[in-house]
Structures are given as C-alpha cells and as structure tokens.
C-alpha cells in the first residue's frame, strides 16, 4: 500500500469523509467534511467514490509527500500558493484538476485565501480505520481519523486501492468557478427552527434583517456570530436539552447566534430560531472569521429544490469535466 507522509501539518488538518450519520442517539455527531460538496467534487475528479476520505485543512494547508505516484486533486477554498516540488522547480497545483504527483515530490498547499477550508483528495482515498462506520476525525472526542486527532508532522497515512474509474480530464476551471460561486455567497438560507414560534413575533423577518459578522470562535463544532442581539424568548433560561441539527441557529442568552457545525453536541439547551438549509451547509463550512453574513428565510420546498439543483449541477459538472469540458 502506498503511503502519504505529513511533512508540515498546516493549522488544523484532519482526515474527513462524509461522516457517520445515524449515531446521534449515543451523543455522536455526524462529523465529516464541513464542505461536503468540495470533498465530493475532489473525489469524483480523481475517480474516487464520493465518500472516500480526504484531508481537510483550515486556513493554512499541509505539506504532503507520497511514496508512490498518485493522482491528487485540490478542492475547496482558494490556495493560490499551492505547488508541487518538481525536479525542474515548483509547479502550481491548480484547483479541481487531477494532477499526477511522482513519488517523493513535495506538495505544499500554503494558505487558504478565500473560504476557510480546503481538501486534498488522492486516488484511492486516505485510509484509516473505520470507527462507527466512518474515517472522519472527531477531535473533541478523540476518535476516528488518524489517532482521533489533528495531523502532525511525521504522521503517515495509507492510501486505498485505486478506484477502477477514469480520472476526469479537461476544463477543471469550470468546476473551480462553480465551487467558488457556491462559497462566495454571504447569505445563509434558513427554514424556521424547532423553537421559532417561541421568539417574539415576527422572528423570521427580524433575523433576516440583521446582519452578522463571523467571530473568531468559528470551528467544526459551531460558528458564533456577532451583531445586533437576537431577542431571546421568555423562559428560555429554563429550557431543557433537545436534539440538535447541523446548521441549527441557536440563540444563547447574549442574543449572539451560534450556528452548529458538523461536530456539534447532539443535544443543546438553547432555543433554535432557524436552521440552515442543506444546500447552504457548504457555505457555512467555508465561513472565515470577520466575514459578513446574513440569513434569508425560504420555504421547505424551496430548500429541497435548491438541494436538488445543486446535486444536478454537481453531476453535470463532473460529466462535463470527464468529457473534456463539453457540458451543458
């Protein structure tokens, strides 16, 4: 089995796949990529199934070297400095493009300039033991991924059997532009949350009118927002713990919303005013501290339609990439 060695770890780099849904009754969140769209696209471009594990890095990427030739794909936020150390000198590693890297050539990803996170996918996927059905790392509970923690220099990860699928070739610029378009949105579309009716009416227009800024307290567990406080409902302090959701917009006593992420606690004691729609979870996963963001209520039907639309765009894009850019 070929292996990848982590030479520099970057700021916070973990192994993630599409997570372990279905265990929240045991207090186990789904985890997985915070931007599943980028991971899936990267995987498809190197010919992996959507759920193969990749490396998710935050704000500053790792340096990685493989001991055999491998096809990789960089996806997610913009990493303009990403490069491969070729014998003839550094060669830029473009996004959403299958690139063959020779054994011993150092991949240096560097800072993520737009979007909070990026993904490095490799042909065959990174292989660590499955824990509760997934390779995803849950750092807060110390399991999954590589030893239940963020990667460090010197760590070695195996790669899986290469998938018997063609690697996509062609106009990856289109894929990169599409992902950039998705994550450049500063609007999180929401539907009403579990406790929406507790809030002083009319909660939804009030939330939609308020602008927020992403605070420094922004990680895989949740994104805390700053801005005009959202008024809390009467009696919220006496609330008991209820099951949570990725994307749930909790309003704690200080009125500054916390949008729960993929590593969220599975129950929470703050009232939930709204929930980010599935199609905008990739936007949530890409928010950086200091960015402005606002909410926009939509209907459940519009939310489902947005998700179907995004899925069909992803499918069309990968078909287009695979057929040398001739797509719709």
């Amino acid at each position, binding site marked *: 089995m070929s292996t990848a060695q982590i030479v520099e770890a970057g700021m916070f780099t973990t192994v993630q796949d599409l997570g372990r*849904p*279905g*265990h*929240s*009754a*045991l*207090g*186990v969140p789904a985890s997985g990529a915070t931007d599943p769209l980028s991971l899936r696209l990267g995987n498809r471009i190197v010919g992996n199934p959507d759920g193969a594990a990749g490396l998710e890095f935050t704000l500053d990427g790792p340096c990685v070297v493989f001991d055999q030739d491998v096809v990789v794909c960089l996806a997610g936020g913009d990493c303009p400095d990403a490069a491969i150390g070729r014998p003839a000198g550094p060669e830029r590693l473009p996004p959403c493009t299958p690139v063959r890297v020779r054994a011993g050539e150092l991949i240096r990803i560097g800072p993520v300039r737009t979007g909070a996170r990026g993904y490095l996918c490799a042909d065959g996927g990174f292989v660590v*033991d499955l*824990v*509760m059905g997934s390779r995803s790392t*849950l750092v*807060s*509970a*110390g*399991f*999954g991924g590589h030893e239940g923690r963020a990667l460090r220099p010197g760590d070695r990860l195996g790669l899986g059997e290469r998938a018997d699928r063609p690697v996509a070739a062609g106009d990856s610029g289109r894929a990169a532009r599409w992902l950039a378009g998705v994550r450049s949105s500063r609007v999180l579309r929401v*539907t*009403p*949350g*579990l406790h929406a009716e507790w809030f002083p009416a009319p909660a939804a227009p009030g939330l939609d009118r308020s602008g927020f800024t992403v605070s420094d307290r922004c990680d895989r567990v949740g994104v805390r927002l700053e801005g005009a406080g959202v008024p809390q409902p009467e009696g919220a302090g006496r609330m*008991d*713990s*209820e*099951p*949570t*959701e990725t*994307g*749930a917009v909790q309003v704690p006593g200080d009125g500054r919303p916390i949008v729960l992420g993929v590593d969220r*606690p*599975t*129950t*929470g004691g703050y009232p*939930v005013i709204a*929930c*980010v*729609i*599935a199609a905008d979870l990739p936007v949530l996963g890409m928010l950086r501290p200091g960015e402005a963001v606002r909410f926009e209520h939509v209907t*459940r*039907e519009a*939310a*489902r339609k947005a*998700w*179907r639309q995004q*899925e069909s765009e992803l499918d069309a894009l990968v078909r287009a990439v695979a057929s040398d850019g001739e797509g719709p």
Partner: protein
Amino acid sequence: MDEVQVIWSSERSVHVVVRGEGNADGIGRVCEALRQRGLSGATDITPGAGSVRIALELGGADPEGVAAEVLRLARAAVDDGDGPGRVDGREVVVPVCYDGAFGPDLAGIADAAGMSREQAAAAHADGSYTVRFLGFTPGFAYMDGLPDALHAARLESPRTRVRAGSVGIAGGRTGIYPRATPGGWRIIGATPLVVFDAERAEPSVFRAGDRVRFRAISRAEFDAIASGRTG
C-alpha cells in the same frame, strides 16, 4: 389531544414534541414505535428531554408524507398506548467511588442536604435511575431519578477539566463524564468503567431507556477495576 406535535426543525428533519407530566415515558414510546416501524426515509432517531428528532433522507421522495406518518405513529404510541409501548431498558450497574479525591463537590451537596458525606453518597448510590437521553459529548447519559435532597444547581463557573469517569449532579439529574472535558456539573465521585469507547462493538455503556443503579466501591476496588481494565 394536543400532547403530541410534529414540528419541522429544518427541511430535512422533524421533532416530535411530547408535552406534559410523564413525557419521558411518551418519548421512549415514540422512539420505540419509530424504530420498530423502520420508517423508510428516516435516517436517524434521537431522543431529547421533551422531543425526538427524526432526520429525513435528503432527496427522499415524499418528506411531507413521512412527517405525517411520524405524527400518526407518535400519536398512536403516546395517546392510545398502542404499538410496542416502551420496551423496558436493560439494567446497568455502575461501580462508583465516592472518595473525596474523586468527588470535590460531595461535601457541599451533603451540607446543603443536612447530611454527612457518607449519607449523601449512600443516598446517591441507593437511587434508581433512568437514562433519559444522551448528548453533550459521545456517551454522556442524562439520568433522571436523583433523590430530591441531592438536587443542586450547576457550578456558576464550569471547571476547565473534569476527569473521565466523574459522576456529576446538575439540577435533578446525574450523569457520568465519558472523557476528560470542561464541565459544570457538581462532581461527587468517579467510576472506573470506560462508559464510551467508539472502537468497541457496543460503544456506549448506556442507551436511552436503560435503568441504572450505582454500587458504592472503595478506592482499592476502584484501582483494581481500573488496572484490570487497562490490562
């Protein structure tokens, strides 16, 4: 009857809310009914204190129809007492050492209850508890059944680190920290058991609905169990 209500909590999940006294039993019944029914399109069923969350398959054919079926099953399970009812949970016995070194808050709780430390520990160990739900961190079970005299508010300021296995009290509940984390519950003792290990075939010692008893053990027995555990 408006005791049972289905609320859309996103476009991809509903919560069944069960109100009123005895809703813990109702929530157990709803979970059991939904699990036994094997509702297609429901991917995750999670109980909380007053509600059950049902995650629906993204892109499922008829989410609104699944929600209607959830409501029908929940009403039948709670109002009519139809369906499988609440399956009696297993009984789990948990050894706990109430030594001062493990239970920094036991003395304060004993004082407030007008008891000695030994009496307060015995009162906790003699209780009969039920796991209401799990949450906060993997394997953390929120248990009902704490004797009234031992009820205590959370710490004003949470500890930055509570050791794994610590047994705590908050309000009318007791619970065990599966791993070292920050925590605001008042700590009265510790168990040598590993209550959650994701790599075990059965990761969690506790499931919602389990009945729990504590067995008071000495420091020597704690050490013996803990050392046996690690090999």
